[in-house]
Structures are given as structure tokens and as C-alpha cells.
């Protein structure tokens, strides 16, 4: 058996990283004012989040070996994100609706989809990420890719308008009063294929 000291050292480093990742996630929620804690704690939470990010090597520029090594280990061990699933609150869900304008003038509405239920959960994750401001630079690219996947199935579509928005489900009392969910558009894009891109 390898020396117990080696195991204990690995154990200490491993759980130090897990603790740091978990606290970083928790501080991030407090700093974003997503919790019931008083807003006076926001500044401290933001500072604490930065300390946690520093401990995880995130302060270094991307080619840094320290940052790279820590990130590789975290991903390899599946511990790169904290355990704040469905917390602190469950927001509405996001929806992407494609308005398909056909060459003959008629219009259809479609949403991106997978054939299996397991993959549908993944699509939900993707849409949740698109709604997150941190993914703002990727939004147009991802929506364009999703539009392209629709285009492959319907080559006679002339133009696609993609509307992304947040769906707020009714509260229990609203549901009892017969109210449904509310769709609040966040952004939309118009896409049309250039001749050379047509499938």
C-alpha cells in the first residue's frame, strides 16, 4: 500500500478544492442577491467569492499552468461546480421559439427539440445558460446553430425569427384562479440563409 501520508495529502487537497468550489458557489448566490440574506452582506460575499476564485487559480490568465492544472483536476474529478441545484430559488424556465417564414408566405412556429427525454433535459440546461448574462457573448452563435438545425429539416424556409424569453409559471394561487404562464421575450434574432449556405 502506498504510504498513508500520500493518501492523506491527496485527501486534504481534494477536499480543500471541493470546499472552495462549494463556498464559491454559495458566495456567488449571496453576492447576486439571490438569497434571503440581507443585502449588506453582498459586498463581503463578492470579496469572499474573489478569494475563493483566487484559491482555485482563476485569477491567472488562461494559459497559466496553475489555473490549467487546477481546472483539469476539477473537471476530471467532476467537482468543478458546487451543489446548489434548484437553489436558492427556482426561477422560471426559458423558451426559444422559431418563427419559420416559408417561401410561399406561410408561417410556422417551432422549438428546438431532441428525440429522447434525457436529451430534452440537456436542452433545458442549454436554454437556462442562454438566459444567464454570463453567456451573453455566446447567445447569438448558439441560437444561430439551433436555427441551422431547424433549417436542415426544412430547406424551403426563407427566413427564421428566433425569439428567446423567460416563461414565468403561475403561482399556486394564480393557477387556482385559472391564470396560465407568462412569456416575457428577452431578445430575438432574424436569420436568413445566404445562397452558398443553403443545405
Amino acid at each position, binding site marked *: 500500500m502506498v504510504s498513508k501520508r500520500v493518501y492523506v495529502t491527496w485527501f486534504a487537497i481534494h477536499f480543500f478544492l471541493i470546499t472552495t468550489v462549494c463556498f464559491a*458557489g*454559495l458566495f456567488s448566490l449571496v453576492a447576486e442577491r439571490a438569497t434571503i440574506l440581507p443585502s449588506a452582506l453582498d459586498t463581503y460575499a463578492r470579496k469572499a467569492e474573489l478569494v475563493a476564485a483566487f484559491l482555485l487559480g482563476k485569477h491567472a490568465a488562461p494559459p497559466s499552468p496553475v*489555473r490549467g492544472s487546477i481546472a*483539469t483536476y476539477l473537471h476530471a474529478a467532476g*467537482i468543478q461546480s458546487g*451543489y446548489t441545484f434548484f*437553489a436558492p430559488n*427556482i426561477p*422560471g424556465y426559458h423558451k426559444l421559439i422559431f418563427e419559420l417564414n416559408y417561401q410561399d408566405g406561410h408561417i410556422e412556429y417551432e422549438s428546438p427539440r431532441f428525440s429522447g427525454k434525457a436529451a430534452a433535459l440537456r436542452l433545458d440546461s442549454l436554454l437556462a445558460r442562454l438566459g444567464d448574462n454570463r453567456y451573453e457573448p455566446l447567445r447569438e452563435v448558439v441560437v444561430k446553430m439551433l436555427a441551422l438545425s431547424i433549417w436542415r429539416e426544412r430547406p424551403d424556409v426563407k427566413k427564421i425569427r428566433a425569439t428567446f424569453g423567460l416563461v414565468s409559471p403561475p403561482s399556486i394561487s394564480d393557477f387556482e384562479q385559472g391564470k396560465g404562464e407568462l412569456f416575457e421575450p428577452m431578445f430575438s434574432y432574424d436569420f436568413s440563409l445566404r445562397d452558398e449556405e443553403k443545405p
Partner: protein
Amino acid sequence: MILLQRQWQKLLEFLFPAETDGWLAVFRVGVGLQVVVYALFLRRDWHSLFSTTGKGLVSRELGEAIASFDSPLIPKLGWLVAFGQLIGLGEGTVLSIAWACLLCMGCCLLVGLFCRPAAIIAWFLHLCAAESGALLAYGADNFITMALFYLMLAPLPDRYALDRRLVKTKLPDPRLLGFWRRVLQIHLCFVYFFGGLAKLLGSGWWNGSNLWRALIRPPLNLLSPDILIRFKYALPILGILICLIEIGYPFFIWMKKTRFFWLVCILTMHAAIGLTMGMYLFALVMIVLNLAAFGIGISIPFIGHPASDAPRPRSFF
């Protein structure tokens, strides 16, 4: 100095308890089953999920670029595709082979054939898939990676594995078995403590609105809201109970008197998540992790003997 040495000895005793390999057998079979189910669930969408621009739903290259931003050393399906191109295999063929290999490795783990190589290959392939589909990943992926990571490091094979029947090797060190079980146990305590704490900080878990929202949002809405509304007074109680079960886990799971009760509660919670929200992969991996960490050798109240021949997890209170 003596005090320090005594503390060090106590720490070693805690981290290296003698264990049999019953928990490892459950862990191996459970993770193998998880890998098989994961592969089968994604069989129809595998190419849509992981193809490059112009073929898949979202380009694999985009997910890989995000993963590479953190570190270029994180494994990706792109590596396999690039290698396939060197030997004349197209992207579609490489993706199909990767899927078939993953399924095959899951089956090997299930029966205990080539345990260590199967665990390493399954970990690598699953990690490649999870990272290449980073934009489409969710919580279950992290837990599957974590389970495969611990499995490939654990002292395989266990006595129930086919490997042990084919090649007579000596049984692993009981203290090493204990160490890896302890790692799994402590990791689960972190998972539930932080999960419970984050939930307690949200007002929606105190008034039941979070449970309501979780259960009526697509694609998790397996139950009709008309049925749910009949239990509206139970939702706040259930919400608080979930938080208490999670935050109390790192304390009550170690106590001899409460361990069985807490384990049943947490397993019921995960089974309910699977059945009512359709998160089967997530539910299965959490049930496997809990059974391996605390389920084997547990004392069942009113019966009073361990459920298997394994020694009971040590009580600290």
C-alpha cells in the same frame, strides 16, 4: 508533540477503517448500470449532441472551446475525432465507436470484467462527452464523472467481480477499501450540506413555491398541476423537509441511531425526484452513491444485524 501524534493517529483511524469489499461491489455494479443507462438514454441523440457545426443541434466545437478556455488538457471528443481522422475514420464513425465503447465498458463494470481498464475507459469517454457537450451538461454529468473517478482509483476488483473468478489475485487491503469508502462518504456529506444550505437561503423552499415551480416546469412536469394542487398544503412542509434532510445529512448519517432513517429519507427523496420529475439518471447515480457509501453494512432497526457481511460504518456519536 504527543498530543499531535495522538491526533494524527485518530485521523488515520478515521480515514483508514478496515472494510470488506461489499460496498465496492455495489459501487461497481451501480456505476456500471449508470453508464449503461446513460449510453442507452442518449443513443438516439448522441450524434445530434456531439457532431460539429452543420450536423448537430449545437456544435460540439463550441462546447469544447468553452472547456478549453479553462484548460486545454481537459479531455474532449474532439481528440478522438482528430485521432480517427489520422487513421481514416470519419466523425460519425468515431462518435459511434465512442458510444459503443462506453456502453461496452458499462457492461464490463456491471459483470466485473476487466474492472480497472473498464473504469478508466468509461471515465475518459464520459468525461469527453460531458466536456464536449458542456453547454448541454447538467448535474447528473458531474456526479457520473465523480463516481467513475472514484471507481477507477478504488482497489478493484472486488470479490464478486468476474475478474476475481478468472484470475486469482489477493484481496485488496481492507484499510485501503475503507479509505475510498470514507472519501465517498465525506464527499456526499459535502454535497448535501451545501445543497441544503443553499436551499435554506431561498424563500421559495420555506413556502413550497419552489417545489411547485420545480414540478410544473417543462420538461420536468410529469405530474399534472391539477393533481399537485390537491397537495398544496403539503408543499411547504415537503420543501422544508427536503432542506432539513439535506443539511442534516452530514450529522445524522454518522449517528448509529439515525443512520438508517436518514438513508431511507434521502433514498426516498431521490426516488421521488426520478419518478416525479423524470430525472432518472440523476436519481440513479445519487441512489448508487448513497447505497455504496452508507447502505452496505447498515444496521436495520428492529432487526439489529448488518444487511451484509460487511462491517458497519463506524459511529462517531
